[in-house]
């Protein structure tokens, strides 16, 4: 379109509704959150300015660290499984064949269902007395008596929940890896075939380096997703035992909503947002670099 004054105003008119929406429902809450984080405020009492006291309180709060470290532990446990597992599934299903395409479609099915709903499903599968997982393990004589999977021991809960989340999201990485593997030029793979490289050698020396960017990006997306985990823990352990499995987002939720410590909740939200921001910047830099 011509660069006329009229066009500028027309363009601005089209973009204004979205801009107003984002200013109202993203930018304003963000500013409000920063303001809240500097105040002592619990809905019943009026907000009182306290500077950085909420942040000081957070870093001295035992539960803040319990939640943060547990979230980190969960992230460190699940990310390698998602990436390595997703990549192996991609290697299996990337080549053109009907069986492989169907397998790919099926592995992706859990990705489209809700995390809340899949957590309810696995909450039942892992149930001590009513769950089929204990039944199978008992019948196979792997265990002598039912295991208390959820909400009794933090590590056992972490393992059980991670299993359910792997089932739910492994297809996401797989599909993106399949896309990257299929984009590797055929001449390159053929050339290495002529050189007499074995299958795994070709994967390690040719395919993996050429798809490394996607591996990095999926890793970051997975890490960010895991650091923001909430649904699965809220539903499957409710933070038990003693809030040991309450993740960072869970901790923010507890302070802001049931406890109504709004200022404190906002400060915690901001710490969380800054942590995520650091990872997102890395992700954007990686994307930018690959585009140029």
């Amino acid at each position: 379109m011509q660069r006329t004054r009229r066009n500028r105003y027309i363009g601005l008119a089209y973009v204004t509704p979205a801009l107003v929406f984002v200013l109202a429902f993203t930018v304003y809450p963000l500013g409000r959150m920063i303001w809240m984080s500097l105040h002592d405020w619990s809905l019943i009492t009026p907000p009182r300015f306290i500077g950085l006291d909420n942040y000081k309180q957070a870093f001295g709060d035992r539960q803040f660290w319990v939640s943060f470290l547990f979230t980190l532990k969960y992230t460190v446990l699940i990310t390698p499984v998602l990436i390595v597992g997703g990549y192996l599934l991609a290697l299996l299903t990337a080549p053109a064949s009907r069986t492989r395409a169907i397998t790919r479609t099926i592995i992706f099915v859990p990705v489209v269902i809700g995390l809340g709903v899949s957590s309810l499903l696995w909450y039942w599968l892992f149930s001590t007395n009513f769950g089929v997982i204990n039944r199978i393990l008992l019948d196979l004589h792997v265990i002598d008596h039912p295991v208390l999977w959820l909400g009794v021991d933090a590590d056992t809960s972490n393992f059980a929940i991670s299993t359910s989340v792997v089932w739910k999201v492994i297809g996401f990485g797989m599909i993106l890896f399949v896309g990257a593997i299929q984009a590797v030029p055929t001449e390159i793979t053929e050339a290495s075939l002529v050189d007499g490289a074995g299958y795994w050698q070709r994967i390690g020396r040719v395919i993996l380096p050429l798809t490394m960017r996607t591996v990095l990006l999926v890793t970051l997306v997975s890490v960010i997703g895991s650091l923001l985990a909430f649904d699965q823990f809220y539903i499957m352990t409710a933070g038990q035992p003693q809030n040991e499995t309450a993740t960072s987002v869970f901790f923010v939720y507890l302070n802001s909503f049931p406890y109504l410590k709004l200022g404190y909740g906002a400060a915690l939200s901001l710490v969380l947002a800054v942590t995520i921001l650091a990872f997102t910047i890395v992700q954007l830099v990686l994307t930018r670099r690959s585009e140029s």
Partner: protein
Amino acid sequence: MTATLERTTIRAVPRPVHTGRMRYLVAAGCIAICTVTLLPLLYSVLASVKPTAEAAATPPTYFPHGFSLDSYRRLWDYQEGLLTYLGNSFGTALLTIVFTLLLTVPAGYALARFPIPGKELIFVVLLLSLIVPYQALLTPMFLMFATIHLTNSLIGLAVLHTAIQLPFSLYILRNSFAAVPRELEEAAVVDGAGSLQTLVRVFIPPTVPAIVTVTLFAFITSWNEFLGALVMMSSSEKFTLPVILATARTETSLGGTDWGMLQAGVTISVIPCVLVYLLLQRYYMAGLMSGAVK
């Protein structure tokens, strides 16, 4: 970048030279993986049609010994009734789709095709929520919604879901509008078409696949979203499906969790997602490839 939403070209990747045995191994691996993936879902469906007593049995039976729709009947009448919760979930999802399209179709068009002062800055502001996770913004949003009476409201929840979905939509649509050939647009301008006519007649038809993708993702995001719905809806008649089911997992009339009813709820929640995914797989994959990672 040029993310047109064409079908992702599937290139034939040369397979390792397979001996006959290798082929069987691959097939066996595929079958095993599909089984592990589908069994939990299948098992949930089976549990939902077990008779009441069997659904509450310890240890659980592997296969239903009888068939009954009692679990669905109990879910139908649970609290405000299944129809209320289905209505809330579908209503919110529908509003989310409408809001998202009304905001991002014009904005994507403008950003792709008009000389706007400060365009880059506007685009960055619009994509802001990509960097700030909505989980962190829930506390101030809740307070804001409480003052403007948008808590306990499907419209309010849809606004929140739209805020989550907006950057993705805008990004996809802007790129699609940018990929429409200039000649088409110029012809319309010569014919004397206004900007809105040009949008409807020239730009929308070739970008229908992108619009389908955006609609599909808005639906799935809204239908599945849990934390926002949990925070914004405090009265039970406004709960969405995942929230009422999460409540039902602990609180029941029988004294213990009603497992059969819970799995009936899981089955019903899963059906729309799996259905739209299988029917619109092409659009789903296109969105994933151009939006999720880039």
